[in-house]
């Protein structure tokens, strides 16, 4: 009876092996699914990149390898469409950086204020208000801002209104990135700094800000990302003649057909993404190695 219940060494070994193999298959299947979805998500960009190397009017037919589209894009003197693309790219980047900087400053201060507030109801109210732009439909945000600017304040939409629109979009995400870092922080370091004679501002900049820097940085990156990706708020709040990449592409598409060199531009953006991706992988691999070395050092 007892002998029946206790598995022999070989049996245990076999069972363990089976379990390990099953686990391995599961892992491969799981990662295969993830990569399959990623491939589908990146496929349109790859598709456009392939067709950026042939000089045809519309994608789908191959006209032989050519770098003509890149030439058109970079020799923009005298080429109105290429100039428009570069103009729009510059505007997009400008709005992204300006709105991200403002969002990060307001959002970091806001998160610190929310974290150190003494009243629970106030904290709840602030967190709820912060949630509104996140869940709100972008077009509602956009229309409400336009009503404020145009109908109530009798302003023309200008660069500032566009930036405000993008800050509304990004600010809540900055707060959400910074808050968890504040919660992880050791609260006594700030007190210690003050006890050692630091002023409040100094303690803030020398102790709190460095501690929550990773959250601030990821908030900044998120702001940039949201701004680069935006269309609806941009088109509602931008001044008339000002085009960003999204509004430019949309209006070109409605007028019937994109300029072919936009494919080359898209390919360049795609390669920037690939570079960033490789950079992130290398950095994380280096981090892992550094950590391993540190662990060995402790031993």
């Amino acid at each position, binding site marked *: 009876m007892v002998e029946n219940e206790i598995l022999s060494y070989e049996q245990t070994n076999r069972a363990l092996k089976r379990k390990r193999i099953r686990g391995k298959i599961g892992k491969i299947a799981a990662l295969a699914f993830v990569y399959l979805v990623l491939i589908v998500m990146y496929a349109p960009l790859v598709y456009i990149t392939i067709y950026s190397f042939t000089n045809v009017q519309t994608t789908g037919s191959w006209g032989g390898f050519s770098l003509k589209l890149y030439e058109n894009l970079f020799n923009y003197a005298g080429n109105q469409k290429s100039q428009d693309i570069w103009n729009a790219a510059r505007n997009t980047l400008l709005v992204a950086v300006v709105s991200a900087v403002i969002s990060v400053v307001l959002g970091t201060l806001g998160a610190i204020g929310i974290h150190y507030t003494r009243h629970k109801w106030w904290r709840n109210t602030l967190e709820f208000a912060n949630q509104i732009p996140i869940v709100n439909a972008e077009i509602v945000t956009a*229309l409400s801002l336009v009503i404020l600017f145009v109908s109530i304040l009798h302003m023309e939409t200008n660069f500032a209104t566009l930036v405000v629109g993008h800050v509304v979009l990004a600010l809540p995400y900055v707060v959400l990135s910074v808050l968890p870092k504040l919660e992880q922080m050791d609260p006594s370091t700030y007190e210690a700094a003050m006890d050692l004679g630091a002023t409040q501002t100094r303690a803030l900049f020398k102790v709190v800000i460095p501690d929550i820097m990773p959250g601030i940085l990821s908030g900044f990156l998120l702001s940039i990302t949201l701004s680069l990706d935006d269309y609806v708020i941009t088109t509602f709040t931008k001044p008339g003649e000002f085009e960003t990449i999204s509004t430019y592409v949309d209006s070109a598409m409605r007028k019937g057909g994109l300029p072919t060199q936009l494919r080359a531009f898209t390919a360049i*953006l795609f390669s920037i993404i690939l570079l960033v991706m490789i950079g992130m992988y290398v950095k994380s691999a280096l981090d892992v190695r550094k950590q391993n070395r540190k662990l060995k050092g402790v031993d």
Partner: protein
Amino acid sequence: MEAVAVQRTHRRRSNFRGMLVIPFVAFMVFFVLIPLFLILFYAFTDASGRPSLANWADIFTSFEKWKTIGITFAVAITTTAICILIAYPIAFILSNKKFNKNKVLVYVFLLPMWVNFVIRTMALKDMINTMFSSLTANLPFLGLVIGMVYDYLPFAILPLYNQMLKMDKNQIEAAADLGANPFRVFFKVIVPMTVPGIISACTMTFMPTMSSYVIAYHMSNDKIQIIGSLINFYFMSGTGGYNSGAVLSLVMLIIIGFSLVLERLSNNKEDARKGGIW
């Protein structure tokens, strides 16, 4: 005496940091709360500012508008369901140390956003029309849903991923050790723990799907209109159209409010359950 002094300085210190919230509050009041009240005000007034329900009557007595609202819901529900079905396993795999130790993979899902979504939509449209001979012209609904899923999948993955990071892995193991089969573990342990994430992922895909008229326009070859297209139409028709736009915005706001309440309730229940155990 000394203790009181210490307490007083302590309070003053806290106030300093609490004060830092003022610029944030000012910004939120001016550019989030006041504009929302303006939507409310504009929805119930006419172009000259007098109280009126004419805009509601205009919109909700029109068969065309009801059709648009119906189609919008159909598109939004289909898109949200597909997004959750794809995003849930992905978020689970990404957040599980057994499968993925690398946080970089999460960012890889977000990186396409650096190429603006209008360009990505245009690229997607070009690609599927080449692969499936003019799909967006022949099957506008399918084309539209493909476009929406493609653009909003990352928005479904992120909240689910964040929720699953917080998930108590021991409970899953415990359930399995106590003899629950994987299906039971999934439906009885994992899904209940991720309800807040599921609701917020639904909100994050449902709302943009209702408003994203650019995707609707291009991915259905202008054959399907959604609520967002209508709001945009009213916006384009000048300041006189703001009132009608505000009516539709208010309808969307009500849906949003409803989902917010739902999210809050599910979160509270979670907290209450935790509190009950200890």
